């Protein structure tokens, strides 16, 4: 098995605060790799660094062996990386289906002339895209909202809509940022089966999530970070027994108290 995503000595500073500090880890191809840690540990910052929304202060990120450090998000999408957001990034001026169709951007010709003249090739590709995206919406469990305006959808459905949009790009690797946040138990259960089905398609999944039950059930491998540093790494069973992780989560006294300030 080979590493699809490799992060080496990655660091990010915000005005003197080390949000991520010399972090290294590998994500194996085909794994569901979860990243957990207390609030403010730097999980979302890590996602933003890996997906090109932030520029790292130091370190490298490689995808399939190619250096992608600091590359623009749209280029990473073309290379097969897709993601969702903790605080949704949905185009509220578009319909639900159009949001998913936006995700297929990299697979569609987008020439201005072809668009203006509605050339038959483009028209057919767009029709196929529409069908494919309807199926994707049903797959993630928000098929009931296909003809709705995005702005008319409830929160739980919007979270799934983002996953459908990310899948529309046909990524090799999918990064999910707290997909279960704000979902009830039934919805979380449905989400778990969606994540497992995605993994079953051979898509590598990187998951940031607070819901431990969900994480322990779906993950092949876990990375625990705290204050921007790696705390522990291993299988769900190893992490469950790890003393430092227990301390970080339950506030035990096995570690020296840290003097580092909380990131602003």
């Amino acid at each position, binding site marked *: 098995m080979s590493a699809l995503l490799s992060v080496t000595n990655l660091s990010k500073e915000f005005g003197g605060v080390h949000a991520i500090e010399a972090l290294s880890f590998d994500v194996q191809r085909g794994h569901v790799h979860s990243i957990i840690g207390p609030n403010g540990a730097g999980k979302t910052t890590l996602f933003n660094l890996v997906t090109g929304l932030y520029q790292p202060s130091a370190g490298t990120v490689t995808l399939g062996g190619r250096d992608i450090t600091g590359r623009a998000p749209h280029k990473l999408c073309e290379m097969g990386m897709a993601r969702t957001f903790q605080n949704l990034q949905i185009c509220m001026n578009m319909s639900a289906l159009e949001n998913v169709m936006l995700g297929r*951007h*990299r697979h569609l010709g987008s020439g201005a002339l072809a668009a203006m003249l*509605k050339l038959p090739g483009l028209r057919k590709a767009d029709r196929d895209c529409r069908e494919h995206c309807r199926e994707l919406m049903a797959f993630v469990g928000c098929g009931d909202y296909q003809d709705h305006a995005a702005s008319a959808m409830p929160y739980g459905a919007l979270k799934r809509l983002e996953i459908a949009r990310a899948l529309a790009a046909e990524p090799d690797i999918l990064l999910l940022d707290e997909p279960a946040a704000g979902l009830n138990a039934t919805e979380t259960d449905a989400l778990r089966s969606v994540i497992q089905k995605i993994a079953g398609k051979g898509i590598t999944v990187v998951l940031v999530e607070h819901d431990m039950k969900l994480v322990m059930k779906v993950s092949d491998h876990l990375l625990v970070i705290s204050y921007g540093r790696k705390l522990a790494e291993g299988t769900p069973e190893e992490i469950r027994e790890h003393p430092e992780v227990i301390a970080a989560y339950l506030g035990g006294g096995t570690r020296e108290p840290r003097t580092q300030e909380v990131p602003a």
Partner: protein
Amino acid sequence: MKGAGTMKKNILMSPYGGLLLLTLILALMPLAVSNDFHYDLLTKICLTATVAVGLNLLVGYAGQVSLGHAAFYGAGAYASAILTSQYNLSPMVALLSAAAGVGVLAWLVGRPILHLKGHYLSMATLGLGVIAAIVLNNEEQLTGGPDGIGLPPLSLFGHELSVFGEYQFAGLTLTGVELWYLLAAAVLVVAVLLALNIIDSPLGRALRALHGSEIAAQVAGVDTAKYKLRVFVISAVYASVAGSLYGHYSGFITPTVASFEHSIELITIVVLGGMASTFGVIIGAAILVLIPQFLTDFQELEMVVFGAILMAVMIFLPRGLLPSVLQRLQRGAQ
């Protein structure tokens, strides 16, 4: 849950149904008007609406505000004037060259300024408009300065189309004014068709995504800088073509075509008619061309009235005239 959010497909809401309706209205308009003055207004409405439809792609759909769009309108008009009168090009060749030139100009100008966001982009485009007006006023040898510059009548396939002429078609006698209206109406219909096609395409989705969530667009693979530049160029070419036609129609242009006031008028049309509503901005154009006709006795009040209308729309109909009205009709139907 079904209902409120469902996008119903009735003929008015479907864009191409709207295009059919527009074509019908434009075709039947001659039955409702009687004199040259009315045709003159209709022609001006069609040409202004053409600019607005292009500007709406940039402002309404892609969410990038330009406060200097009259610069491209003026550039098209002046390029046509200079190319026909000083370089003896035929009007159609001049119009197409002007459109290509303005497209390149928009690309060159757009590259640096489209990296700006929000108010900063507005300020940069405002500056662009001011520069254009200054150049047209001061390059007297080329542009005629504040006195303006004349244009020959338009010629199509070797036939001259003068507002003062009379033309025979299959036993029908049409005046030049009537023919000009038909030409301007046809241009508007084509402009709308192309715009609708763009909106309903991957390109159109990418543009609307710029407005909805630029981050979503980026992670979905949209090169946002490239797409902003693209829609900027497209909307500039729309303005250039309409500007060239207006120049030939009126036969004489002054730097006011590229003035700051004209840019504001264009953005008012888009906001008034309805951002991201192609048919709304046509209504907006009609209103803004007609208002001065009702205010001929109080010309100095024109800008005041424009301002008051803009404020009233922002307060009472923030989505613009047509979208707000359609929304109410839809609610009433349920």
